[in-house]
């Protein structure tokens, strides 16, 4: 075990390991690209959906059940299925990652919206606010903490799961995990895993900071 971590240190700090098309720098960029694009697309789908359901109160049952259904979707199966349908392309990766991220975003956005005190909404309407004004000026700011929780959860899941891109021949940090498995090179596997975890944690902290900034902005 000690040996493994000593070698991990060497692996992570060697200049050669960082350079080139199979280098850490390149794989890190690819991984970030997959994760961010997938999360953004998922947010573009999940946020409006969650807001709409939360605001209108319609379709909640269906959406929440679909979301928990989505959580049960096996990513490996989805990747393979889309691969068999579309051939060698990035589609399997992106579709699987988006499908993974949407449920967390929808359920948390919806939960955030329902947590808003109905009296406050009534008061806002009483003051003559229109539907979309209530949504954007009252409900959304109040639901923001839970919405951000959903986004952060989705991002962490996507970063950890983007590893799967390597299974269908693409890059990202998963390359080290899958290649390390094939070559039984545990240092490489551990290196890939540690880098994925670091990326997830750094991005999560970034979103947490953003969240704090947004709050200060609102209360100021």
């Amino acid at each position: 075990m000690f040996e493994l971590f000593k070698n991990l240190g060497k692996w992570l700090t060697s200049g050669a390991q960082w350079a080139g098309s199979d280098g850490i720098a390149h794989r890190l960029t690819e991984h970030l690209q997959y994760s961010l694009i997938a999360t953004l697309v998922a947010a573009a789908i999940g946020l409006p959906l969650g807001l709409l359901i939360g605001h209108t109160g319609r379709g909640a049952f269906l959406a929440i059940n679909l979301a928990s259904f989505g959580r049960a979707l096996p990513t490996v199966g989805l990747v393979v299925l889309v691969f068999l349908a579309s051939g060698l392309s990035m589609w399997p990766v992106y579709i699987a990652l988006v499908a993974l991220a949407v449920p967390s975003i929808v359920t948390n956005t919806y939960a955030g919206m329902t947590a808003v005190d109905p009296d406050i909404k009534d008061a806002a309407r009483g003051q003559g606010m229109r539907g979309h004004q209530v949504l954007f000026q009252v409900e959304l700011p109040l639901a923001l903490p839970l919405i951000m929780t959903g986004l952060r959860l989705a991002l962490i899941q996507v970063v950890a799961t983007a590893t799967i891109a390597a299974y269908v021949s693409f890059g990202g940090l998963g390359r080290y995990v899958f290649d390390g498995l094939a070559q039984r090179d545990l240092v490489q596997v551990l290196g890939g895993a540690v880098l994925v975890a670091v990326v997830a944690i750094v991005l999560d902290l970034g979103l947490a900071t953003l969240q704090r900034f947004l709050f200060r902005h609102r209360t100021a």
Partner: protein
Amino acid sequence: MTIDWSWIGDHTDDLTSLTVSHLQAALSAVFFGLLISLPLAVVAHRVRPLRGFLLGLSNVLFTIPSIAIFVLLLPISGLTRTTTVIGLTVYTLVVLLRNTVEGLDSVPTKTKEAAKAMGTRPLRTLLTVELPLALPVIMAGVRIATVMSISLVSVATYIGDGGLGQLFTDGFQRDFPTPVIVGVVLTLLLAVVADALLVGLQYVLTPWKRRRA
């Protein structure tokens, strides 16, 4: 992409055994996850300084790709079911630990004090007052952990296990969609049925909740 229905008919035995093996892996993980999280959650609930550490640790574990955990376990537990179950258990901890701590937090202080005033011992209070009252939140965690594990088992196909996940690698290698579709559908069905059963279990375990309704 067409489904070869006759393949499904010819493979009912295989599909059954894969489904059973899949469910067994997922449920074992949730079981061991609970076994580990319950005491840890009690510690985290009572010893404030440890709380952040334990929850933080489980969160960090969650960021590690599951396949990497399986591979890194190979020198320890080899190509066995144990590897699969340990790997999955690690993932259930995030949800189970957090929900159990939150469940214990949600028990009103007054209730605990009343128990104390009546001379109930701490362990008894924990078992007969705190845990039952925390049960709804804990069960919510168990439900999420179960569904998550059922979906994750298939990753273990990369180390030769993985229950229904074996249908994915098989279909992939042979350019054969039928097993993959069947695998995905069965996984979803398993998750739905398991979740429904847990809802039923919770109903049975929390009779006081029913009276109110």
